[in-house]
């Protein structure tokens, strides 16, 4: 499924995205990686319809797209279930049905006890769970995730990662995940796209050879250390050439 076709995006006179195309299949997670400020969030904003590209085609139905923002962005006047039900508002669902669905999702993300609390009463991790459940609620065809786990403790991060993986497989959702965390990428994504610094260009593509169920820790660590030696990936962490002697371990499928 083609999502972006030859996108160019300019901000003022500065080119931010330079000929970026993106394809993703239902039930798969595509990872986006690149140096800070290279335009990853802009890419997600284009996919979400929050911005329009200077040139190129965005082939996404915004009404079937959900966006898990980096910050929770919950509405402070709504309780957990009301926030989760926010996207159902536009779908013409009866209020009771909306709340029931939201309650079920609150349980799914582990917030059954906090269903009627306001965002200020929730911890950061709990707020991020609401953010995720709010996206699940609309049963999106395309799920956009902008580093949603970066500010969470490890336990919560693992839990939410598992939730996203399970959801994507079960509902055959197409997911695009922006991440800075290589081990997260190896664990979660089926395909990793690496962008260059501004203007962002696709410079590296890595396909995860293992299906989600068999990505055990040993595999993750092995792959992680191999990937770290790839200059394009190292560059996305701001490291120019970390291990110049180990160039030969480069995976071939570039």
């Amino acid at each position: 499924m083609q999502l972006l076709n030859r996108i160019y995006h300019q901000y003022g006179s500065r080119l931010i995205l330079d000929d970026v195309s993106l394809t993703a299949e239902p039930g798969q997670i595509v990872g986006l990686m690149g140096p800070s400020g290279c335009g990853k969030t802009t890419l997600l904003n284009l996919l979400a319809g929050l911005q329009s590209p200077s040139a190129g085609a965005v082939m996404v139905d915004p009404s079937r797209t959900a966006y898990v923002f980096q910050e929770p962005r919950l509405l402070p006047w709504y309780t957990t279930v009301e926030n989760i039900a926010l996207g159902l508002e536009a779908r013409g669902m009866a209020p009771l049905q909306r709340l029931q669905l939201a309650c079920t999702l609150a349980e799914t993300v582990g917030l059954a006890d906090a269903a009627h609390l306001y965002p200020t009463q929730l911890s950061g991790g709990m707020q991020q769970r609401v953010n995720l459940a709010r996206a699940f609620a609309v049963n999106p065809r395309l799920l956009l995730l902008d580093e949603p786990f970066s500010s969470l403790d490890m336990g919560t991060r693992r839990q939410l990662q598992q939730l996203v993986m399970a959801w994507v497989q079960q509902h055959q959702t197409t997911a695009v995940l922006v991440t800075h965390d290589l081990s997260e990428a190896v664990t979660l994504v089926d395909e990793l796209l690496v962008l260059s610094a501004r203007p962002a260009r696709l410079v590296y593509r890595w396909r995860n050879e293992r299906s989600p169920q068999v990505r055990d820790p040993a595999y993750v660590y092995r792959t992680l250390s191999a990937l770290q030696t790839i200059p394009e990936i190292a560059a996305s962490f701001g490291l120019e050439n970390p291990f110049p002697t180990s160039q030969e371990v480069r995976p071939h499928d570039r």
Partner: protein
Amino acid sequence: MPNSPVSKTRPAAAIPPARPLGQTLRPGLMGLLSLVILLLLWQGIAPRYPNVILPPPADVALALARLFGEGQIWPAVGATTLHALGGFCLAVVVGGGLGLLAGVQPLLQAALTPICVALLGTPPIAWLVLAMVWFGLGHTNSIFTVAVTVGPMVFTGAVDAMATLNPQWLEVAQVYQLWGRNRFRCLYWPHLMSRLLPVWVAGLGLSWRVAIMSEVLATPNGIGAELNTARANLDTAEVMAWIVITIALVLASDTLLRQGQQRLLPWQQEKASQQRLRRSCATAQSDLSPVRLPADS
């Protein structure tokens, strides 16, 4: 809905845990105690001075009872309420409306802000003098003075309310397909209410004070006018009785509006410390300057 998941989850978390009775009673008791001490001090000092300077509390109580008994209080309270509420409503409609427009239209904001600053800087007494010239002595000049004093404050609050709408929420609204009426109901209305209600609470408190001030000087009816008459008759006990009535009136309106605020904004429970701060601010001269609210976290 007995079997819905809504009732399955625990609503108990939304109810604040009950505090021990002693802890809830103690602040009230302390307040009462300080009031009693003040009355005793007053009672102790009063005999040293002639009645015209400082009548004893009992005299004030008697004067108060007389005002109630003779029914003199009701027309005065009615007139003052008319002036305060009339002026306040005018301020909310005109100041608030212009403020919301200015909040979305930067050019209008740029045009109106200097006028607003000038109005905020003008003492109410100056308006009163003008109002006497323009409208003569009557209801109109009181209402006008209240409106012109409170209006700029409401205007600034409304501009602020529009300006503090988080653009990130607008993105959320767009992603989740909230348009038109839905967006207004889910986003604009709760946000504006949470910003405007506190300004209105402060504005109404100011309205009472300005209304009574203008009545003392330029309006033949209302509590202020009665104060003036009592003063002219050298009946200090009655002056004080009117002051007690004023305090009761302001407190009642303040409590009522604050309760409405708590009902409308359940997610914004004011902490006790904030309440105290706001009370002390409400009686200070700083009422006359634009209200800046702490940013939402």
